[in-house]
């Protein structure tokens, strides 16, 4: 077992994780900012470093369809996409999940048009949150690498058998060079193990039907099963994180807390903005401010009670959403967390901050400003504006 430190982009390390996993089939279509995941992986294929059957397709609808076919045939299948590509897969996302095919997909988060934009926000994967896939968000390249490897085990676990999406922020992480500790090939190979499909279509001795028509007499029952399976994945995700710690030394949970225990105010935010927020927490802590952070990792299944409990001692919280639910009461993270707090029975004062749409930067001053506002809310117990937009010009 050896660990090597490399300087790579998020996309390079995602492709590297795929190489080490060595899936049976990859069907993918290039789209900014995911492109070099597929480009790099196709080099591995051309150089004979993987045994993967690489299917080049004419669209993402076909990419996900080919993944569904290959997974139903009994293969370990991976793909990658972003934004509009994910949108083009939309119908097939539901088919993959409802057919219980453990496909692993990297999604490099990018704004879903329009007007057309290629930079980061979470509107793409938030739109796909009800497709039945497990969704795991990564803060940086290291987490992207670690999450992709763990995703294989989560997806293929017998209690789960569901597709998994692993996300990281477009350009910020996908194209920024970061320091990553990578495992050796044998360790990854042994960790992911051999895939045993439940009902491979290629098993001609046991013919069966995939994807039959399912009307009002049984469709609802199949949906109810999906609810059970995705909820069952929560303890499985934790178990696999524990095993992963043994080979990597790195800790993973359903969410991460940073200086939260004795904090009075906190920010809740996904992905790369959590990194910036941690730097601000460090600065404010030096000034004696009791500030903290909670970064959800697993968004589906959403650990609503666990998060509500972890936030319950706070005086004020800002929940940051990098996507909008037009006409809804705040962003998706905000509504989920408020609903969880309601169920838990403790609702600290809270605000929702929409930020970073279409790649708009959020800097340390912006985040410090949010903590300052939280301090005032904690003092006065009054919220002036529940839903706010940070970084937009008035």
């Amino acid at each position, binding site marked *: 077992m050896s660990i090597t430190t490399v300087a790579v982009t998020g996309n390079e390390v995602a492709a590297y994780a795929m190489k080490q996993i060595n899936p049976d089939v990859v069907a993918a279509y290039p789209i900014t900012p995911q492109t070099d995941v597929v480009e790099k992986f196709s080099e591995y294929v051309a150089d004979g470093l993987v045994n993967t059957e690489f299917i080049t397709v004419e669209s993402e609808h076909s990419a996900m369809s080919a993944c569904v076919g290959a997974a139903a045939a009994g293969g370990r299948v991976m793909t990658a996409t972003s934004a509009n590509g994910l949108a083009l897969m939309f119908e097939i996302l539901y088919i993959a999940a409802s*057919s219980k095919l453990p496909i692993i997909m990297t999604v490099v988060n990018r704004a879903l048009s329009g007007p057309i934009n290629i930079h980061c926000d979470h509107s793409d994967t938030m739109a796909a949150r009800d497709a039945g896939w497990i969704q795991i968000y990564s803060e940086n390249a290291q987490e992207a690498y670690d999450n992709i490897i763990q995703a294989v085990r989560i997806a293929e676990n017998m209690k789960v058998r569901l597709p998994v999406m692993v996300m990281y922020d477009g350009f910020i992480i996908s194209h920024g060079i970061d320091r990553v500790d990578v495992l050796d090939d044998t360790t990854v190979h042994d960790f992911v193990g051999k895939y045993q499909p439940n*009902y491979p279509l290629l098993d001609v001795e*046991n013919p069966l039907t995939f994807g*039959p028509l399912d009307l009002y007499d049984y469709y609802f029952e199949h949906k109810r099963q999906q609810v059970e399976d995705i909820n069952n994945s929560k303890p499985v995700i934790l178990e696999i994180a524990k095993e992963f710690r043994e080979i990597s030394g790195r800790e993973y949970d359903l969410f991460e807390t940073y200086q939260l225990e004795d904090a009075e105010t906190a920010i809740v935010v996904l992905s790369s903005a959590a990194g910036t927020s941690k730097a601000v927490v460090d600065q404010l802590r030096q000034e004696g401010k009791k500030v903290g952070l909670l970064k959800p990792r697993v968004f589906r299944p959403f650990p609503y009670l666990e998060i509500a409990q972890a936030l319950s001692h706070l005086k004020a919280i800002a929940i940051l959403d990098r996507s909008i639910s037009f006409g809804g009461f705040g962003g998706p993270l905000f509504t989920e967390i408020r609903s969880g707090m309601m169920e838990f029975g403790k609702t600290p004062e809270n605000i929702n901050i929409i930020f970073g749409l279409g790649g708009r930067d959020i800097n340390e001053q912006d985040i410090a400003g949010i903590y300052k506002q939280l301090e005032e809310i904690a003092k006065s117990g009054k919220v002036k504006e529940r839903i706010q937009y940070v970084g937009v010009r008035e």
Partner: protein
Amino acid sequence: MIVKKQKGWKEIPKGGLILEAGNAEQYETGSWRSKRPVRDENKCTHCLICWVYCPDSSIIVEEGKVKGIDYQHCKGCGICAAECPPKAITMKEEKEFQEKEGAKK
């Protein structure tokens, strides 16, 4: 009418999969029919064109000869009647047979 007890979500295969082969036979699509193909034995040359064309495998053939039509599964699409070279098959209103056969299917 016999109402079959339907299974709950814990009892059925996951993913909407159908695990046993050939069970489409249990689905009696004959109830969809509004017109019934009726074959005239005297005109039929046993060329088996209808057998080739029938999308529901409802032409019953034994030892190279048409023996009858499987009305449990024939949907009444009329392809056999249209394709039959000597026009040995006529499509008749299903209603007539139902009146004749009374309440039973």
